[in-house]
């Protein structure tokens, strides 16, 4: 029998301050990047514009292609090599509405212009347009708000369900942890300039569920351990629960990671952003279920020191005693100020 992390007793929660700092710094970097380096790199599905994926019969030169498009009057086109040397994506803004009524009345005007420019330079038949996407501004805006509303509502429903099945504090902790995952993934997307397409939104939504699962499984164990009615500070119960579920966490993350890597390596360019975001997300989900969900639960317990479970009888007194007991284990004295605030 192979066993990993069997009967461990790591003090995970001890590190929550480090984890919190790392998390906040990362999210701040994302926000900073958003503020100073401009908005999110939305794909045309969310903004509007024309995208054409073109495959040439023989390799072409980037500069030449750009010159051809400029000459064809496709203004400010963005060219990107896609996969191998013969495939490119060409992105251009749709012309401003109301301009030149006759020619741009057709939505595919820009696509037609691109084709014309390529025909002129390389000759018809020297390329195939594999994919053409033209999106108007309204569709993109609706997609964006739709996804956002769905995410917020999904979080709310999760909160209500967990409040019903566990206790409100578990639900709140799980939702905060999931929100953390989404925020950090958004920061990652921003920092690494990943294009936000529908596929990437799909990855974020998948993550929403995945991260929730992870937290629920640890909390389920916490609930069970609390029911045993041992007189033990919540801090220890949380650590114990995380350690007990550790083999499961490691194995499940491994299989999920294997599937994600298969996507990353074999599924091609279109799904690559999905796989990249998921790969990062799996790490974050693991991290947050241990270092975010549990400390948040502990924090809520201190703020509202009532029984976590009837049988556990964690009273206000016990919570205070617990925090006092925990003190020597703290890594750095710098955290004194917030502690006073929470234990008062």
């Amino acid at each position, binding site marked *: 029998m192979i066993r990993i992390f069997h009967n461990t007793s790591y003090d995970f929660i001890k590190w929550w301050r480090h984890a919190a700092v790392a998390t906040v710094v990362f999210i701040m970097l994302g926000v900073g990047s958003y503020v100073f380096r401009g908005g999110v790199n939305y794909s045309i599905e969310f903004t509007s514009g024309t995208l054409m994926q073109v495959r040439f019969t023989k390799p072409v030169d980037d500069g030449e292609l750009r010159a051809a498009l400029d000459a064809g009057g496709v203004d400010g086109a963005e060219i990107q090599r896609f996969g191998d040397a013969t495939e490119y994506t060409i992105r251009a803004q749709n012309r401003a509405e109301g301009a030149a009524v006759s020619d741009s009345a057709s939505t595919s005007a820009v696509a037609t212009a691109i084709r014309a420019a390529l025909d002129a330079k390389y000759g018809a038949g020297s390329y*195939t347009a594999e994919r053409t996407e033209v999106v108007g501004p309204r*569709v993109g805006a609706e997609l964006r708000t739709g996804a956002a509303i769905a995410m917020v509502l999904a979080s709310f429903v999760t909160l209500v369900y967990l409040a019903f099945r566990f206790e409100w504090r578990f639900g709140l902790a799980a939702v905060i942890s999931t929100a953390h995952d989404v925020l950090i993934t958004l920061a990652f997307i921003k920092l690494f300039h990943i294009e936000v397409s529908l596929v990437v939104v799909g990855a974020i939504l*998948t993550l929403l569920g995945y991260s929730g699962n992870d937290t629920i499984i640890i909390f389920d164990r916490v609930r069970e351990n609390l029911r045993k009615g041992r007189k033990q500070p919540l801090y220890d119960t949380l650590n114990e629960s995380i350690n007990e579920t550790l083999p499961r966490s490691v194995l*499940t993350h491994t299989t999920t990671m294997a599937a994600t890597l298969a996507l990353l390596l074999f599924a091609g360019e279109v799904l690559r952003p999905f796989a990249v975001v998921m790969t990062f997300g799996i790490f974050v989900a693991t991290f947050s279920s241990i270092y975010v969900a549990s400390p948040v639960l502990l924090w809520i317990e201190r703020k509202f020191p009532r029984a976590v479970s009837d049988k556990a009888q964690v009273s206000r007194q016990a919570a205070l005693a617990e925090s006092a007991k925990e003190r020597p284990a703290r890594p750095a004295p710098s955290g004194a100020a917030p502690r006073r605030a929470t234990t008062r």
Partner: protein
Amino acid sequence: MSNLKYRLGLIAALVIASVWALFPRTVVERVKRDGAFVYDTVRRVPLKRGLDLQGGMHLSLEVDDSKQAVADKSDALDRALKVVRSRIDQFGVSEPVVQKVGTDRIIVELPGIDDPKRAEDVVKAQAFLQFQITDETGSLDKALSRLDQIVRDKGSAAVATTSTTGDQPVQKGLDLFTKKDSAAPGDTTRRDTAAVPGLNASAGPFSRLLERGSINGEYYVAQSNAPALETYLAMPEIQAALPPGRELLWGSDTLSVGGAPYRTLYVVDARPIITGEYLEDAKPNQSPIEGTIVEFRFNNEGGRRFRSETGKHVQDYMAIVLDDKVMGRPPVIIQAIGARGQITMGQGRSLQEAQDLALVLRAGSLPVPLKVSEVRSIGASLGQDSISKGTTAMVIAVLAVIVIMIGYYRFSGTLAVAALVLYVLFTMAVLAGFNAVLTLPGLAGLVLSVGIAVDANVLIFERIREELDRGKTVRTSIDEGFKHAWSAILDTSVATILTAAVLYQYGTGPVRGFAVTLIAGIAASLFCAVFVTRTFYLVWLSRTRNAQTLSI
């Protein structure tokens, strides 16, 4: 034992049902054969592939209220939907999707269509047919000096505003004539006189853009001047100064005069002598003299009106106007015309264009103008490529998970792998059963779910190990393992299903598909991990009496 029989029976029944649901069947379908569409029996795999996997075109249409306000868009779209659907049906695509989404959009999906422009034109064409007599009185010529004056007064200001708003095509037009001119920019009048020789080289900035055509009310405009002219025509002052009761319409053709492309502009009577509402039939044809034509026929009432109106306009030229564009060169009316007529599309036009026009005329005009707000077209080869890559990723993911599970859990891992195989089968069957469409993101979700689906088994196995560690017997450990893992499995599943339900309710297209895949996956995973694996254990326990050790 009998309990076990029922369990195995249920699993077997579900497997058979799934295989049956996924088995390719023969259906009667509209297919393209030798260029024509016929009904034929073909084999079809039930799990439909989305456009991104099989190639095709997706259009989304909205009411275009830029010209006129539409009070009840939802109702207007309902009416438009019928027209669009009948056009698409005649277009001859197997399994097209035409549906209203929400209250303000029509979605059209055309699998296998590789000419986006053509499909877009057919769907979008308003098919508003009018017959208008070209202006006999030369009223535009008389107004020209006044128009020139307006442009001189307003022109430079207008040019300044348009260029700052980044009006690309207009700017392009202006660039073109600044290049031809060496005069200092800003000096509008001088620059104008130096440009392309117009109707009157010494005339003002407006009339310079026009050249008189060969029939009454016809003008030629150099292609490069057209955007500038349109900007002028859009000015309210110019609009007010145009001759009353007349309309300016572009021709559909581009002429070549002395090697340079020219467009035609017609001045016509604003009141049409007849509109397309009396149209009964239209069909394409090819004539050696006039090129590609569309022959049409009015109904009796229309024929009567047409005869009396054309009778009043003998020797005049009649513009055939489709969606505010003059089709071909206006023919001269030699004598009163009855119910039959034709639209000349000109030489060099393909029969397909005539076919499309006839199709649009037959299917009727749209009750409201529509605009295309989204077009996606995916080549068939790219779709095929996505499928093969997605399948490769799927196979590798499954193999990797199999290796991990068997390597780590040995015998129990094998049971989990068997359950996993059933999971993939069941999930696909559920998707097929709900007529779900497999898209590229859906495929990615499926691959990923293979990794996640074993989670329930992992939870159970870890629990069984814990129970074994406590020194319980194999049989008790298995029972306890399943019992203790259940609450965690249930809570995660329900939480995820709730999330997916919300996504389904509030998400748009692709997000919805994702939610359906998610729910199908969870249901299948729950059944496989809990019920199927348990059954396998029960079978094993019944065969190995008094099992002392469990390979887990």
